[in-house]
């Protein structure tokens, strides 16, 4: 029994922390897609910018836990500019926004290469200590990361379900003309939503920075499973995102322990194809 716990608990905790981070990325994507109808292919690069912001800030001597919210705000501000300069000008032209955000992704990646070079950088975990959890020990930072990611996920869900901002955002999505006629500045709601989605990506990137190598191409590795998770879970509800990331992220992380990362990804793709075949609109249907 103890041997079983010893073997499984760290794997499950690793998987859970990956799922929670992936959910932050996917939530940002789905908020932007669900509310604005925009498929943001630069989302992975926003994630990457969050990681760079933290790595640079810590390099300049800022404490890690101050750098994380600053990185999220910084990426949110970049989202504000992207929304104003690019997204809002292409409203109601889905194909064009895909092309534009794809181009933006390339520009952001290469911009980072030009500014900081193509090499990866690493960052020490703010708390290197391990925590004893019954029979196992586990890195304290990963536990803090999980708690923070879970709290932000819940807060975002509540923001949309319970607050007036959430109500106006959902209204602007369902019937933009009617929302505008009721006095809601739909453009401003869209922009705030985009900023929120960008900030979520930035936060996820900032939190993962101490765990993986930070390089200009790190975004893609999270964007693809995030998209996959949305396809599997369904984009109609935020609950679908959690189910989708649970399946995709969980399988990816767990299988990676026994198989090569490549084989794990092939299996994950296979699971995703099956799930999409059985439920083309996602496992979680709209309420």
């Amino acid at each position: 029994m103890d041997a079983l716990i010893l073997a499984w608990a760290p794997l499950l905790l690793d998987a859970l922390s990956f799922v929670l981070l992936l959910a932050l990325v996917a939530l940002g994507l789905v908020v932007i897609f669900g509310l604005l109808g925009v498929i943001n292919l630069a989302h992975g690069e926003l994630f990457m910018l969050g990681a760079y912001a933290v790595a640079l800030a810590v390099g300049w001597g800022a404490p890690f836990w101050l750098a994380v919210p600053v990185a999220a705000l910084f990426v949110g501000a970049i989202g504000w500019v992207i929304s104003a300069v690019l997204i809002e000008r292409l409203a109601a032209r889905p194909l064009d926004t895909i092309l534009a955000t794809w181009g933006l992704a390339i520009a952001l990646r290469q911009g980072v290469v030009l500014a900081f070079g193509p090499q990866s950088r690493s960052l020490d975990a703010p708390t290197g200590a391990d925590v004893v959890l019954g029979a196992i020990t586990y890195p304290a930072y990963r536990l803090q990361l999980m708690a923070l990611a879970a709290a932000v996920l819940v807060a975002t869900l509540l923001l949309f379900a319970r607050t007036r901002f959430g109500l106006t955002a959902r209204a602007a999505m369902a019937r933009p003309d009617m929302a505008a006629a009721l006095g809601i500045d739909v453009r401003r709601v869209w922009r705030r939503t985009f900023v929120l989605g960008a900030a979520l990506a930035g936060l996820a990137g900032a939190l993962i920075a101490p765990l993986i190598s930070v390089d200009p191409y790190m975004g893609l590795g999270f964007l693809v499973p995030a998209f996959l998770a949305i396809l599997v879970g369904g984009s109609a509800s935020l609950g679908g995102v959690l189910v989708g990331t649970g399946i995709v992220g969980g399988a990816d992380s767990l299988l990676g322990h026994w198989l090569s990362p490549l084989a794990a990804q092939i299996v994950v793709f296979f699971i995703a194809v099956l799930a999409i075949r059985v439920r083309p609109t996602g496992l979680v249907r709209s309420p």
Partner: protein
Amino acid sequence: MLTISDLHVGYGQGTVLQGVSMVVPRGTVAALMGRNGMGKTTLCRALMGLLTPSAGSIRLDELEIGGRPPHRIAAAGVAYVPQGRGIFERFTVEENLELGVAASGGRVPAQVYRWFPALAELRRRTAGTLSGGEQQSLAIARALVSEPRLLILDEPSEGLQPSLVDEMGSLLLRIVADRHLTVFLVEQNLALVRRIATIAAFLVDGRIAGGAAARDLTPESPAIHRHLGL
């Protein structure tokens, strides 16, 4: 007072409204009648800012609202009940009403539930499950929560049985008198127009083709024959 002068509005190439002028004094109900496709809904949407006029002006009292974005026009005191009601079907009744005050940051006035007591009982219901009459009440109530000066109603009687149209007419008369509300009513239902409107104008091919005192109109009136008859 609503003053529309020489308003031109079009979609893409064609111009749908070609110089509409109308004055609706404060506290009165003006009806706009006409066959389908004459531009009535286009005029409503232009008044609300959902379409941008290519020429002409729309003034609410002394304020020029023509060409402004809809949320600004709403803030100036204009509320809109579109054709088909524009209810958020998946939201609750209460959420629908709250959206009417979301922009101003206020709360839903209790008065609205006194005007529409049935809605008080339906507060937690999903709006899409309401009957047609209840949805129409909700759409009008939602327009009134912001305490507008001008209310635009586009075919409110559509799909309602005559007894409900009657009831809605009485309630609207009461609210107009209570609030000194100006109402721009697009309607094909002559009974409702006679009941609540003071003046009626006829829209033909994007132009006002005449007007009449609403109470003088009967199904036999030449104007009704010419502009609404089959």
